[in-house]
């Protein structure tokens, strides 16, 4: 038989064979293979780095899992750095493992996230909304100020704009998007661009 285990909205995608899934709102992340996440380096243990990804265990990242890394040419990763990578091993029985290269060996945007910027945490539901194709929130924000944005599936977002004040404004809008409706958001952005 079929058992529903989480509460949420039942969604249906008619394309292909059709798919049904339950869309639930959570804040706690559980590592899933293939997810792109932002991790914080907590320790260097020999050849692997330990990263905090917000799950129940720290993930491991080998120093060879970067583009162009060899035994002689090690990546410059310090404790406290932010890394954007994806999971290659993530199940309930083993410690999760991350890499910063994709299957062809290219980094495709993954790796160490640069200096400055601001990291904050939101719920997983908001992340899925932001990562949906043609997300209105991101388009409207990009008309406000230019900024760099990294979204991790573990609920973490990193933002960097030209000045600290602009960065904080974008952070506050993204955090508030969770509870605002579309009209309230448009009003808030109109007020800010008017200033």
């Amino acid at each position, binding site marked *: 038989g079929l058992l529903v285990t*989480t*509460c*949420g909205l039942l969604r249906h995608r008619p394309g292909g064979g059709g798919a049904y899934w339950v869309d639930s*709102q959570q804040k706690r992340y559980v590592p899933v293979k293939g997810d792109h996440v932002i991790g914080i380096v907590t320790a260097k243990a020999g050849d692997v780095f330990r990263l905090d990804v917000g799950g*129940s265990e720290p993930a491991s990242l080998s120093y060879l899992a970067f583009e162009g890394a060899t035994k002689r040419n090690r990546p410059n990763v310090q404790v406290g750095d932010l890394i954007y990578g994806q999971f290659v091993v993530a199940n*309930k029985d083993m410690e999760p493992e991350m890499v910063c290269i994709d299957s062809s060996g290219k980094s495709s945007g993954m790796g160490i996230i640069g200096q400055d910027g601001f990291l904050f945490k939101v719920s997983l*539901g908001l992340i899925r909304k932001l990562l949906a194709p043609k997300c209105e929130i991101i388009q409207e924000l990009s008309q406000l100020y230019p900024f760099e944005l990294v979204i991790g599936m573990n609920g973490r977002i990193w933002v960097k704009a030209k000045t600290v004040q602009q960065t904080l404004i974008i952070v506050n809008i993204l955090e508030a998007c969770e*509870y605002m409706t579309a009209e309230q958001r448009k009003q808030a952005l109109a007020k800010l661009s008017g200033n």
Partner: protein
Amino acid sequence: SLSPGDTSVLAGLYGPAEAKVSKELPDRAALEVLLRPKVGLPGVLERSREQLLRQTCEAVILGVLHPRTAISLVLQVLSDAGSLLSCCLNAACMALLDAGLPLATLFCGVTCALQPDGTILLDPTAQQEQEARAILTFAIASSERKVLMASTKGSCSVEEMQQCLVAAQRAATTIFQFYRDSVRRRYSKC
């Protein structure tokens, strides 16, 4: 935060998080329940209630999906005007729902007070609890209204217990409808 009448309990759920090596279980999640009374330090009564809550929650949480992790449930009593244990059970279930933890079934808590003349009162106040001959608390599951936990204080006959159980199962339907409405309100904002 859940309050039937004037009894109010605040529940917070954390997990699945990293477990201490001494507490982790190799095949399932380790559940820990902490019940803090409104005044004073937690005593023996709180400890026994914590164990009842823990065993009920362990029966519904699918712990095998998260081995070697720890799930912590913290309950703070804000006000107590009777039926405290069933209020804690309801708060615990809503916290589990809100956190999105995988559950096999929902559960709710119902308290019955058996008065000296034999009538059954549901969700008694503190005054009614004092006067009652026996107080029975049941944790009822949402699938087929099965009994997950039964706790009795005082003495009653087997038939009276059966009658209280039937009344509690009927009352459980109202509580599950309340869960559904609360969750619907929450998801309507998405």
